[in-house]
């Protein structure tokens, strides 16, 4: 991996080097889970992905132009996870992007876009895996987006300011993703002495606890991105339903696109 200067940002001279930084996002590696667990997590993810595929298919059939916007959304999700995130503890990692993705594109669409992204990461970057795709989809494309979106919508319902809700949505999405991964690993590898709970403590301390500062970082980054988007891309945010539509200016057809 090419070292990158914090001062100048130099070193990221190729797409590969930018993408190699994705590697610190935590996906369960190929073959890590026993076959029964891999199948069970695949079955658990399937209804959400099928639901997402149905909404995406319906959307594309009604509005063929959505294909390009959804593809752009998928590429944005893929690239977002490649950004280098300065942690509040001083270390570096990468955002999961699930919180921002869920707020912008809604959880059902994120289930499909997340699955596509994870498939690309497994085959193009050897990151994650095909036998563990179901488990990774469940944590990163199902639980993360739904938990983050749930927190976001709940706070929006109580008229909490937009940026606070965006921070909470991204924070909850990031942390829940890593917590679910810890649960998945603990179920697969229970502790010989204390069983599932002991294993959860072990994997949680290795992965999830270290992710709390990173979840804060991702929340902050998402707020900064959203603030800039509110200034520069009001039209797109209105079309995606993040900002309220002005009466008479934006029709239902436009709102539906890319949701």
């Amino acid at each position: 991996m090419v070292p990158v200067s914090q001062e100048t940002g130099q070193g990221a001279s190729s797409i590969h080097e930018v993408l190699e930084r994705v590697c610190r996002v935590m996906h369960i590696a190929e073959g890590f889970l026993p076959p029964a667990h891999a199948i069970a997590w695949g079955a658990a993810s399937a209804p959400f992905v099928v639901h997402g595929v149905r909404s995406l298919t319906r959307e594309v059939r009604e509005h063929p132009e959505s294909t390009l916007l959804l593809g752009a959304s998928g590429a944005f999700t893929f690239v977002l996870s490649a950004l280098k995130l300065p942690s509040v503890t001083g270390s570096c990692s990468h955002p999961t992007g699930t919180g921002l993705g869920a707020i912008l594109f809604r959880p059902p669409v994120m289930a499909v876009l997340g699955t596509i992204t994870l498939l690309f990461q497994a085959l193009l970057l050897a990151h994650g895996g095909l036998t563990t795709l179901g488990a990774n989809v469940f944590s990163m494309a199902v639980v993360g987006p739904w938990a983050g979106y749930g927190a976001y919508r709940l706070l929006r319902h109580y008229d909490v300011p937009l940026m606070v809700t965006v921070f909470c949505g991204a924070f909850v999405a990031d942390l829940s993703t890593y917590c679910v991964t810890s649960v998945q690993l603990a179920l697969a590898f229970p502790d010989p002495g204390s069983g599932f709970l002991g294993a959860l403590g072990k994997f949680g301390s290795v992965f999830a606890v270290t992710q709390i500062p990173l979840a804060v970082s991702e929340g902050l980054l998402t707020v900064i991105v959203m603030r800039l988007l509110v200034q520069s891309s009001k039209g797109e945010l209105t079309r995606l339903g993040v900002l309220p539509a002005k009466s008479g200016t934006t029709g239902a057809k436009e709102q539906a696109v890319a949701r």
Partner: protein
Amino acid sequence: MLPIDAAAHSSRWRRRHPVDKAVLGFGLTVLAISLPPWPGAALVLVTALAVLLGPAGVPGRGLWRAYRVPLGFCVTGALPLLVQVGGPGGFLTAAEGGPVRAGELLLRTSAATLGVLLFAFTTPMSDLLPRLVRAGVPAPVVDVALVTYRMSFLLLDSVRRVRQAQAARLGHTGRAAAWRSLGGLGATAFVRAFDRAARLQSGLAGRGYDGTLRVLVPEARVSVRFTAASVALLAALAGLTLVLEGPLS
């Protein structure tokens, strides 16, 4: 283009049908996680490595660069297996049989990863995605995946250039500046992605876009001989594992 995809485009097996390579690669992966780690996964690992570096002609250096990424996760994930929480010895003690479990896990994961890498290093994504429609994946989903795949490279290139421009303007000199630059980078990626989609839409509309993205897929036929040889190899590995399991364990 990413290194694995670039290697796949120039692979010896580039012209083979993806099904041929899927049977062999994913078959090895399934064997790696299904058979006992010792000697099953070890045999799969050696076989996969031999096929990758031999008949498939995958460059060793590129393979190692891709292989070390999941290995890092596996080592980190295997570490907790070495200790146990609670018990008569204290709160945190060395787990009985922990090193064996960790070793077996590493063996299984390494072998399974090589199976997928065998497929990835010989099959370009552009050959695979359009054929997923025949496998039952809805066409709109495949179209979205195709656009995502092609747009990702352009967007990553844009992000790299924006990052260089930010660095040239001292955008990474302090913590506050770094955060501001990163936020700008994320927002720019969003704006550029949607701008590019809008321009693509205009271009396609001018060419009579009806909602279907038609792409040329290289002609290839499933080789019965290759697939049969792959199945025979997989069966031989499974049989050898069963034979050796008793004496070696």
